[in-house]
């Protein structure tokens, strides 16, 4: 019998076995089932047994209103497919209907997603883990009083608020193909949270995330946006992600990181238009992990679900410093992974519309913004004066 090496990082993983059975509706691309597929792959790859596995307590109404408005949450708690007609006005006001439909158990689903991210944050606060993982979370578009882009409640914002109780500076990084607008907006005016988002920009949801959006008030220069074009590949992505994030880490010096791992930036995504493989996507996890700063990994977008579960499985393995075979293990959903039944996916031959020059130029602009950050952060880790 070999004793588990404690030299590796402690990874806490959050999952609720109910999550896979929430259903947004016929034809809707968002499928919580992909989280279950990930979970089953983790089991059958033998990664599960290397994790601390937790079932999170669902977030309470009070916890969710630490960011969201009471009336929005009350609405979300009460709305059901069978009472929609009574809530016509509110549905419009809270942007619930088309992208964000009312489905059975929508509030419970939010409670699981938020419960996982809050627990993941609290875990880091207690220094009980090095990396915490909640693939149920990452719903970065939700606003304080508004659903958006398949997101109803913003588990990331709630997690960051929890982190802020014990961390002076929290870094948020978003590699979803969409701009992390919900998180950016929530922390747009604070210098204690820096948000960095890499995303497709230009005639694309949600429309925000311009290079020029840099935060406001005390938060000026604490929002960083890297607008990208279609077809970015692993190499290009790495060529911008690593320099930018190195500089961010050096300038901002966060004591904790939240990484949104939206998998709609992968090649072949049903809604996305990037050309990343698991290796390029996962390299972001590996790179940030290298800074040895406590980190939360959350999910996010991702609409070709066989690839989403591949991606998050691989990234859990990255967090665990464990190599896994390219041959997928048998599991309940094995047939989804045909015809090749391999872990890794190949990039397509789509054109990368991000020229080296464009990427270089954008990076230079971002570095200029980063130079505006105070060398010594505005609030130091020092005894708070009376």
């Amino acid at each position: 019998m070999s004793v588990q090496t404690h030299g590796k990082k402690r990874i806490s993983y959050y999952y609720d076995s109910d999550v896979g059975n929430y259903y947004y509706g016929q034809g809707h691309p968002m499928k919580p089932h992909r989280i279950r597929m990930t979970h089953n792959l983790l089991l059958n790859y033998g990664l599960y047994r290397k994790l601390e596995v937790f079932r999170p307590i669902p977030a309470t109404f009070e916890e969710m209103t630490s960011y969201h408005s009471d009336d929005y949450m009350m609405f979300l708690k009460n709305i059901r497919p069978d009472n929609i007609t009574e809530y016509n006005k509110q549905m419009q006001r809270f942007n619930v209907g088309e992208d964000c439909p009312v489905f059975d158990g929508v509030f419970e689903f939010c409670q699981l997603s938020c419960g996982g991210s809050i627990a993941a944050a609290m875990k880091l606060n207690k220094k009980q883990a090095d990396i915490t993982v909640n693939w149920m979370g990452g719903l970065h578009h939700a606003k304080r009083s508004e659903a958006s882009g398949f997101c109803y409640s913003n588990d990331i914002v709630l997690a960051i608020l929890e982190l802020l109780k014990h961390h002076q500076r929290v870094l948020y990084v978003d590699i979803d193909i969409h701009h992390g607008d919900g998180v950016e907006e929530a922390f747009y005016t604070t210098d204690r949270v820096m948000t960095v988002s890499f995303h497709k920009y230009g005639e694309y949801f949600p429309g925000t995330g311009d290079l020029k959006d840099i935060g406001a008030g005390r938060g000026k220069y604490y929002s960083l946006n890297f607008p990208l074009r279609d077809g970015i590949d692993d190499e290009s992505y790495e060529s911008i992600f690593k320099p930018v994030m190195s500089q961010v880490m050096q300038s901002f010096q966060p004591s904790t990181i939240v990484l949104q791992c939206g998998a709609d930036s992968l090649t072949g995504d049903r809604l996305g238009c990037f050309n990343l493989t698991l290796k390029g996507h996962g390299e972001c996890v590996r790179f940030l992990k290298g800074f040895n700063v406590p980190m939360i990994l959350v999910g996010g977008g991702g609409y070709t679900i066989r690839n989403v579960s591949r991606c998050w499985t691989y990234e859990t393995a990255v967090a665990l410093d464990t190599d896994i075979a390219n041959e997928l293990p048998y599991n309940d959903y094995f047939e989804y992974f045909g015809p090749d039944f391999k872990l890794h996916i190949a990039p397509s031959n789509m054109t990368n519309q991000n020229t080296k020059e464009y990427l270089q130029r954008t990076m230079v602009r971002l570095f200029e913004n980063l130079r505006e950050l105070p060398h010594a952060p505005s609030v130091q880790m020092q005894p708070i004066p009376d």
Partner: protein
Amino acid sequence: STQLSLLADKGAIRVGKKHQAVIPDLVTEEGDKKMEVDEDDEDMKENGNLMIDEEAEENGPAAKKRRNDGVQLTERETLIYHPYHSLSERDIDQFLIMARAVGTFARALDQSSSTKLPSLHMTAAYASRDVTLFHAMALLHQANYDIGKAVKYLVPPANKTQYPLEVDQATNHNTISLGGPLLCRDQMEEWSAPEANLFEEAMEKLGKDFNDVHADYLPWKSMRDIIEYYYMWKASNRYAEMKKKK
């Protein structure tokens, strides 16, 4: 996160009380507090209300949830599994084989199973589904990573006096004790052949509108069961064959 949205490329980051989060004050940590008690004395009073919350956690009923076999817990979570034990990979592999074996045998003893599953191969396949493995892992945890104890949980006595009922709560699995070998069944297995046929008929007629599938074809099933079945069915031979026919 979709081009479906009418709001696409019209978004804007809005500034104002209605949009930004209220940033909480930094709480000095419990551990730090004791180290720096002199300097932080005033601070503690300032953040009094938060500190009280922390105290309550430490002393309240949640406190005892903090530790489970040496793994530290927050009050926001239930521990399902941890890797800090002396079992080898092979030990766990062997235990999972035992779990499958017990599942196979349980189906042989169970009246309702064995009429549905006449074939040995099919039974072993059902007993090897993920629900059985997840449940086994949860039992291993409940048994404090003692294989000898865990295998006894696989074959509990009828009254379940020697079985950790917490495990059913923790994983939400559908376990049936026959007073002997433990049986974990998922929806794929629970459904009868006529139910499966009804479902396929409904899918052809209604598509994936599970509210209607539920209401019109399978009202005795819950929505969740139907959805679980749907996703498993898509990975099954039945689905492959249905697609072939078209």
